C-alpha cells in the first residue's frame, strides 16, 4: 500500500503534492529540472478564451515572507493552448488539472467545455478568485449567488470533475464554499491570493503598475489554514489546500486542517526543487509523527 497516495475526484495521485497554477508556467521549465512523474498531479497556468497580454510591469513585488503579483492572467488563449501546449503534458503519467478563467459566464462555459474534452485533462479548476483583472476574476468569487450560478453552468458542460478555487477576500468563506457545493462542484481549492499593496518610496505611488496585487507565500499560510479548516468542517467536498506551503510540516498542517491534497506556489520561485524535496521527506516525517496514511489523516481531521 502506498501511504502517500490520495484519491480525489478525477485525480488519482501517488502523493498529495501538486504545483499551484501560475507558479509552474506550463510545466516545461520544471520538466527540465526534474522528472515531473514524481508529482502527485500537474496543473496549467490559467487559460482564458482569448489570448491575454496581462498587466503592465512592475507585476511583482516582495513583502515580508511573501510576494505580490499582478500578472493579470497572461496566457496564449484557449486555441493556442490546445494546439501547442497541452501535448507537453501527455508525456507524463500524472493527472492534469486545467485552471480556467474568464470575464463572463459564457467564456467560462466555452473554455470548460472544450478543455474537458481534451484527453490529457483530468479535471478543471475554476479560478473565480483572481484579484488582478478588472472584469470577472475575483468579482465572481465574492458573491455566493454568482458562484452558485457559475458553477452550475460550468458543471453542465464539463465532462470531467470541476474544482472551484476560492478567494480568501470575503467576509465568510464558508458561505461561498457552500454555494459552490450546491452548484455541483466536485472539489474546492483554497486559497487564492489575498489582496495587498506596496508603495514605492521614491515615486510615492503603488509599486505595482496595477496598484493592488495578490499576496502569496508563507505570510498567508495561517489565513489559508483557517479557510481550509472552516470549510472542511462545513462542507463535505474534498479540499485541495494551498497558500504559503514551503515545508513538509506545512503540508501536514493542511491535511490536519482537512485538506486531501495540497498545491505549492510561490515556494517554487525560491527553490524550484521544493515539490520533489517535500515528496521525498514525507514518509520520514509521517513516521516521526506516527501517521500511518495521508488519506487516513484527512479522514480523521474531517470526522
Amino acid at each position, binding site marked *: 500500500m502506498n501511504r502517500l497516495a490520495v484519491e480525489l475526484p478525477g485525480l488519482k495521485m501517488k502523493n498529495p503534492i501538486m504545483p499551484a497554477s501560475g507558479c509552474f508556467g506550463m510545466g516545461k521549465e520544471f520538466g527540465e529540472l526534474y522528472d515531473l512523474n514524481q508529482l502527485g498531479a500537474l496543473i496549467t497556468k490559467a487559460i482564458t478564451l482569448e489570448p491575454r*497580454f496581462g498587466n503592465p*510591469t512592475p507585476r*511583482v513585488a516582495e*513583502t515580508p515572507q511573501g*510576494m505580490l503579483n499582478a500578472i493579470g492572467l497572461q496566457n496564449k488563449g484557449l486555441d493556442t493552448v490546445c494546439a501547442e501546449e497541452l501535448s507537453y503534458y501527455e508525456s507524463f503519467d500524472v493527472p492534469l488539472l486545467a485552471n480556467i478563467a474568464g470575464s463572463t459566464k459564457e467564456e467560462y462555459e466555452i473554455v470548460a467545455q472544450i478543455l474537458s474534452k481534451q484527453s490529457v485533462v483530468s479535471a478543471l479548476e475554476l479560478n473565480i478568485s483572481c484579484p488582478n483583472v478588472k472584469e470577472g476574476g475575483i468579482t465572481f468569487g465574492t458573491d455566493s449567488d454568482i458562484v452558485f450560478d457559475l458553477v452550475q453552468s460550468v458543471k453542465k458542460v464539463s465532462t470531467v470533475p470541476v474544482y472551484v478555487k476560492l478567494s480568501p477576500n470575503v467576509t465568510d468563506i464558508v458561505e461561498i464554499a457552500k454555494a459552490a457545493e450546491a452548484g455541483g462542484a466536485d472539489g474546492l481549492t483554497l486559497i487564492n491570493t489575498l489582496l495587498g499593496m506596496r508603495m514605492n518610496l521614491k515615486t510615492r505611488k503603488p509599486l505595482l503598475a496595477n496598484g493592488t496585487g495578490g499576496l502569496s507565500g508563507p505570510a498567508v499560510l495561517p489565513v489559508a489554514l483557517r479557510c481550509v479548516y472552516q470549510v472542511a468542517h462545513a462542507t463535505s467536498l474534498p479540499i485541495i489546500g494551498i497558500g504559503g506551503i514551503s515545508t513538509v510540516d506545512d503540508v501536514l498542517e493542511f491535511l490536519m486542517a482537512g485538506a486531501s491534497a495540497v498545491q505549492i506556489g510561490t515556494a517554487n*520561485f*525560491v527553490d524550484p*526543487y521544493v515539490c520533489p524535496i517535500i515528496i521525498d521527506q514525507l514518509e520520514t516525517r509521517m513516521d516521526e509523527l506516527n501517521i500511518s496514511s495521508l488519506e487516513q489523516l484527512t479522514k480523521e481531521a474531517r470526522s
Partner: protein
Amino acid sequence: MSLQCLAKIIENQEIAKDIFQLILEGDFVEKIEQPGQFVHLLIPSQKTFLRRPFSLASYHQDKNQCTILYKILGTGTKELAQLKKGTSISLLGPLGNGFFVNPLYEKVLLIGGGIGIPPLYELGKEFQKKGTEVTFLLGYRNQEEVFYQEEFAKLGTVITYTEDGSFGHQGRIDAAFPTLEKDWNAVYSCGPTPMLKAVKENFSNQYPTYLSLEERMACGFGVCYGCVVAQTKKKTPLKVCQDGPVFLATEVEL
C-alpha cells in the same frame, strides 16, 4: 546538473561608493555560455524573501569563478554586502540569453550606464579575444561611483561621462552620440530604461542594436510571468528572464 547550487563567496568588497565586487565559485560557472547571462541569488536574511538577479560581470571557467558587480540600492543588496568571504550562498543559474559575440564583427560600440555597466566588461573581453575593436561609452552618476576604468581601458577605447562632470566628460551619455564615429558593426547596451530608449532611438535603425533589459523578477526562469516586455507588433509579451535579458532593440517596446 541542477540549476541550483551553493556558491562560495571568494571575495565581497567595496570598489567604489556603495558598489561591491563579489567573486563566486562553483560548478555553475561551467554552464555559462554568454556574457549578459545572470544569476539569481538567495540572500540569507530575515529581511528578504525572493531571490535577487545579478548579471555576470566576468567569468573564469578554468577557475570555476565568476564576478558580480552590484550596487547597494535596497534591503537585499544591503544584506548581501554583509556576507563574509568563505560563506556560501544559494544560487540559481546561469539564467537567460546573453549577448551573441559575433566573430565576424570588426568594430563594436558598447554603451553602459551605472550599474548596467558590469555585463559589458565580459562582453568586451570576449570581443577582444576575437580581435574585434571595442569602444566603451560609459556613464556614471559621479566620480565616487566610477569603477573598473582601468579594466575597461585594457580592452579598448573608453569614453566616460559623469552627470556632474566630476570625472570624464560632463553630461548624460546621449550627449556623446553626435560625436561618435559611424562605422559600427553593432551596438550593445545595458543600463537604465531612459538610457536604453535613447540608445534604441539613436542607433537601432542604423546598426544591429542589442539591449539588456531589467525588470522586477520573482522566479527568474520563466514560470511566473512577472518580468515581461511587449514585443513590437506582436501580442504576446516576451519574458526578460527567459527570452532575454538581451533583446534586439527593434524587437521590444520600451
